[in-house]
């Protein structure tokens, strides 16, 4: 089958959906792989390596004959409109926000599989691109906080006096949050964290950090995710978090609820309660922000506090982010492939949940 990997066109996107390693893997599954010229350049994978792995280097028109398109971001509308019938597109799709695109796929009788929709079951873990990219985001969030903070993370006792360790607060201890905790701890910071899920307390402690227990009830949603907060609880939570935020040198926020705007965890007053020279890294900035003042891709200075809003954070580490993403996608393709052909088995819960456009139908 003809697999095509187009270059990403979105601004700030440096990842690529297929790396030379996974070219090899896809070919072993019986597919032919075409990669758009320069698609891997920004991620550190030059065309030469793809060729060595057995891919053809093509230009974007190859999309016309594609049977399987692998991408990171949703395809631009104009590309969707050139797909041939029966073609399958695998990428992040943000289906809730891209109704027009889904319609375009349906109109072309193309299928589309949204990686956001993969169920979080054990079998699907190796295809879980949300997890793998959240891993990258969490790691980078901690590094950025360390780099932006005008102080040391670790405790240092030196001839010029003792430098106390930085206090880092991580809000939201999902995949990204846990990785941020681990990374900040590695650098020597004193880390505490908060999350609404019941399991989070033990998970946070298993990384050697302190869990902040606000005494509020936990919010467990489906599939291991959190539920949305009521406004009342949100207010109470912010109130209780305020002293913790105010005492921190760096705050990293990672809270999310699938399919919703990110919960607001830190409002303006809380920022103003912080000391000057402190830093907030909000990796949920793109999906509405956990911090009232954060703007994706921007550094806001507010009363001496630096608020760093994340924008496509995994893209900041494109080489490994692409490697992980590409492997997720390749594992998914493996699941869908049979003897070199695609077989969309709707009785498989993974396919059923994530296939958002199929046979001319938008399935959500």
């Amino acid at each position, binding site marked *: 089958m003809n697999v095509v990997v187009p270059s990403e066109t979105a601004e700030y996107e440096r990842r690529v959906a297929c790396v030379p390693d996974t070219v090899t893997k896809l070919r072993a599954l019986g597919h032919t792989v075409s990669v758009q010229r320069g698609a891997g350049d920004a991620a550190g994978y030059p065309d030469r390596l793809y060729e060595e792995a057995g891919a053809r280097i093509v230009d974007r028109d190859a999309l016309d004959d594609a049977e399987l398109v692998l991408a990171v971001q949703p395809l631009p509308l104009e590309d969707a409109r050139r797909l041939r019938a029966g073609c399958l597109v695998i990428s992040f799709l943000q289906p809730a926000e891209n109704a027009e695109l889904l319609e375009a796929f349906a109109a072309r009788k193309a299928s589309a599989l949204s990686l956001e929709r993969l169920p979080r079951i*054990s*079998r699907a873990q190796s295809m879980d691109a949300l997890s793998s990219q959240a891993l990258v985001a969490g790691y980078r969030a901690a590094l950025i906080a360390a780099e932006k903070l005008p102080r040391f993370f670790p405790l240092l006792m030196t001839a010029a006096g003792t430098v106390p360790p930085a206090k880092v607060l991580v809000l939201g201890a999902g995949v990204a949050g846990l990785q941020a905790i681990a990374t900040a701890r590695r650098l020597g910071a004193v880390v505490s964290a908060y999350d609404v899920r019941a399991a989070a307390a033990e998970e946070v402690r298993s990384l050697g950090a302190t869990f902040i227990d606000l005494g509020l009830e936990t919010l467990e949603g489906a599939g291991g995710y959190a539920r949305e907060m009521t406004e009342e609880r949100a207010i109470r939570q912010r109130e209780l978090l305020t002293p913790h935020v105010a005492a921190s040198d760096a705050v990293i926020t990672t809270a999310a609820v699938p399919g919703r705007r990110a919960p607001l965890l830190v409002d303006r007053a809380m920022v103003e309660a912080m000391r000057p020279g402190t830093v907030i890294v909000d990796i949920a900035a793109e999906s509405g922000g956990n911090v009232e003042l954060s703007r994706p891709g921007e550094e806001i200075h507010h009363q001496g506090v630096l608020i760093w809003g994340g924008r496509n954070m995994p893209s900041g580490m494109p080489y490994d982010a692409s490697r992980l993403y590409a492997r997720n996608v390749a594992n998914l393709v493996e699941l869908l492939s049979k003897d070199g052909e695609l077989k969309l088995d709707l009785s498989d819960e993974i396919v059923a949940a994530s296939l958002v456009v199929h046979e001319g139908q938008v399935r959500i």
Partner: protein
Amino acid sequence: MSNGVLFAYFVTALCFILALKGLSSPKYARYGNLVGAFGAALAVVVTLTLHGLGHRIPIIVAIVIGTLIAVPAARLVKMTAIPQMVAMFNGVGGAAAALVSLDEYVKQHSVDSGGVAAAVVFSAIVGSVSFTGSLVTFAKLQGIMTGRPVVLPGARVFTPVLALASVGLGIAGIATSSVVLVVVCAITALALGVFFVLPVGGADVPVVISLLNAFTGLTVAASGYVLNNTLLIVAGTLVGASGTLLTQLMARAMGRPLTGILFGAFTGPTTAGSTAELATDRAVRSANAEDIAILLAYARKVAIVPGYGLAVAQAQHTVRELADLLEARGVQVFYAIHPVAGRMPGHMNVLLAEANVPYEQLKEMDAANPEFSSTDVAVVVGANDVVNPAARDLPGSPIYGMPILNVDEAANVVFLKRSLRPGFAGIDNALLYHPKTTLLFGDAKESLSKLVAAVKNL
């Protein structure tokens, strides 16, 4: 007896002490056993060449017969059936000691001192109990009868009555110089032996074997007293003392008081086995740190499989200590890291890096799996789902299709966890109940500390 013979007996006694000493260290155990055998052989040969010994030929024939029965039995028995074999040998030893005392009593008909009389009765009763008791343990272990505690109706009253009766008969026999009464006393004691062991549950039987072994030792000492033979006294006492201590050690190792083992069936319902407290019908095998330490220390290749429990227990430094210790002993150690072990990607890496585990010792799943078949022991530290064979073998299981670490291919699997509770996925793990699996219950950090201490003590 000549001084030469007595001296030979002295040497034998010395050999026996050295034998026990050797047997209590893994390094010298085998050697100790040989020294003991040498001592025993010496004593027998010297005795056989005693000037004035009658019936020499029949005796030698009897010895040959005994040997011809015992050696093949001991050589051919399956490893798993060794405990019942030991029980059997112990039983016949007890019988022999009782016979020797009785015989001497028959011969002298009446005895001169109260001490000797008491010794005769003692060895008749205790030897008989040891004999039939051992037979019952044999039957239990061999599966000839049920391994569950058997409490006959009225046994609670009957058993003490029987004990009193046999003592009473013995005293009466001595008082009246009656051979018949003493024989009847011995026969009563035979019944007592049966009733003594019946209520003991299968899992506790080895402790009882050890106790009966100590009994036999004391019987032999008593016989020695009757025969005025220092060797028998010393050897019997040695075995009696060390056997008693050993019985206690064994009971303690199982975490159960001796009285509970012996009489538990009368008092409560929890005698079925030492794992009765676990809320499961299937049996698991749990062991203590010393056993597992030996398993590890004498292995060639050990895999450490960390999971979320390692992180919860924050046992990363301790696990490394154990691995280092084993490596220092020449054991090859590697860490098998499952891609989703823990609760975040790379969780185990963060942990183990903190403990400075060299990256070269970490094997990712694909590299680790081919290793397990040549691995002697896989130590699963607070992991569960990532080694659950259901993911491989049980379509329909929620984790079916997830690749796992095939620890079940290792020769032995040791789980360090706190209970039989499942992990993240909430599903039971059949590997916990597998015959090649041993569990060490407790917080991973504590268990690992115990293992470290135990390995150091080897």
